[in-house]
């Protein structure tokens, strides 16, 4: 039995152990939380928009949970800086899986996409198009 693992490549483990943009923003444009109660994965994301009200300037997150969900949030927080809300809304699960760069088994996709869904739902709530307290990808 070797140490090789399809899902737990170095990049995932590195982001899990050393999450980027971990913490809070001082004055976020919007904040949203997500939770997968059966997994116990939690992510809280702060997003700061530029003055154009469209471009994402900074993202910070805090969270708890499995390596896939937390690494995904860490990587996404970096990816989103500089993109627009419109581009955020166009992201789908394939984009997240591409970003992670590993094969995500079907049962773990909900972990991988939680951060993306939190960011998207947070933006939609900010734009007045959605009304939810918490996001989940466990349905």
């Amino acid at each position, binding site marked *: *039995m070797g*140490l*090789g*693992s*399809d*899902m*737990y490549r170095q990049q995932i*483990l590195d982001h*899990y*152990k050393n999450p980027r943009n971990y913490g809070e923003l001082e004055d976020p444009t919007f904040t949203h939380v997500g939770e997968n*109660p*059966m*997994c*116990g*994965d939690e992510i809280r994301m702060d997003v700061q928009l530029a003055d154009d009200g469209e471009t994402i300037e900074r993202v910070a997150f805090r969270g*708890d*949970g*499995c*390596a*896939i969900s937390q690494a995904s949030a860490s990587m996404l927080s970096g990816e989103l800086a500089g993109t627009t809300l419109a581009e955020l809304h166009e992201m789908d699960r394939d984009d997240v899986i591409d970003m992670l760069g590993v094969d995500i*088994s079907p049962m*773990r996709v909900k*972990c991988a996409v939680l951060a993306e869904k939190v960011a998207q739902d947070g933006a939609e709530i900010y734009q007045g198009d959605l009304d939810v307290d918490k996001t989940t990808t466990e349905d």
Partner: protein
Amino acid sequence: MSQRNLEALDVGAIREAFPILQREFNGEQLVYLDNAATTQTPDPVIDAMSDYYREYNANVHRGIHHLSQEASIAYEEAHDRVAEFIGASGGREEIVFTKNTTEAENLVAYAWGLNELGPGDEIVLTEMEHHASLVTWQQIGKRTGAEVKYIRIDDDGRLDMDHAADLITDDTAMVSAVHVSNTLGTVNPVSDLVDIAHDHDALAFIDGAQAVPNRPVDVEAIDADFYAFSGHKMAGPTGIGVLYGKKAVLEAMQPYLYGGDMITKVTYEESTWNDLPWKFEAGTPQIAEAVGLVAAIDYLEDIGMDRIEAHEQELARYAYEQLGAEPDVEIYGPEPGPDRGGLVGFNLEGVHAHDLASIMNDHAVAIRAGDHCTQPLHDKLGVAASARASFYVYNTTAEIDELAVAIDNARQLFA
């Protein structure tokens, strides 16, 4: 009762009856340690169900023809066989086939609970209940006004029986408890619990989903009013569970599902109910599954329930020692012994249980990770999820060694 036979199992011979255990993933042979979720199915069970479909498949109870007679006899006699297996002297009238343990719990909750409970009544559960009973009685409580209370567990994961004695009073109408915890592995003193319930004229429902598969169970020695378990956790098929109920209690209950087979006379205005147990088995039942369940019982009894219990305890002890030797592994539930069943729930520090299960899966080791349908218990343990290795007749200490190696791999990956 016959003398206990504790001769070690011939696991090599047993494994030959389970072709699925030969499966390989990426060149590594399956190590199946998720038996508390579902057990694998031996050839005699698959063959019995296959024979049913090849030889005598028909609907039961209503056919005049040969096939229906054969199917009806097999289906009805399956109830007798189950009754004999769990020591129900009332025979088939005390054995209702359901979809699973959860449905058995719901049957009693709907047929008895909704009709009998009201404000002022109390339902006593344990903190280690499976959602099957916890959610069910919680909702019945909300609908009837009955209050739900929980018997505490102590730091070792055992029921606090002093608290049970305080909590169960003359206001208690129902005590529902797991026989063996699916998360902690604790074997509860259910017969003591039933005695306390009966001292206060309460009924007692015992969830035996994790007990019947791996130890001798005598429902009359326990004196439970209701006792439930599932076929697929005891080498049998999915889709069939058993509700045992004392005859007098079942007779006093209204039906849960209405329809064909559960009636005797129907007019446009009125219907009358069939005898036990058919009153509770509306519609075409799980005939092939009943045949499969009988084959599973025959298979297990042929090995011997005492021997199966001893084998599981041995594996649980070995796993406890192998895993528990490392300080970064926390094992839940009591130490190995007679009040601990053959499953080991644990967490590896710094590694989420789902990550652990995924890494194990990369090495063809199948374990369960999650909340195991006991979310409130996990809240109490202070963790979102746990990993669980659970064993059955075909598992070996060598497989537990594989488990320990896989845990070590996860430890190194996440270090």
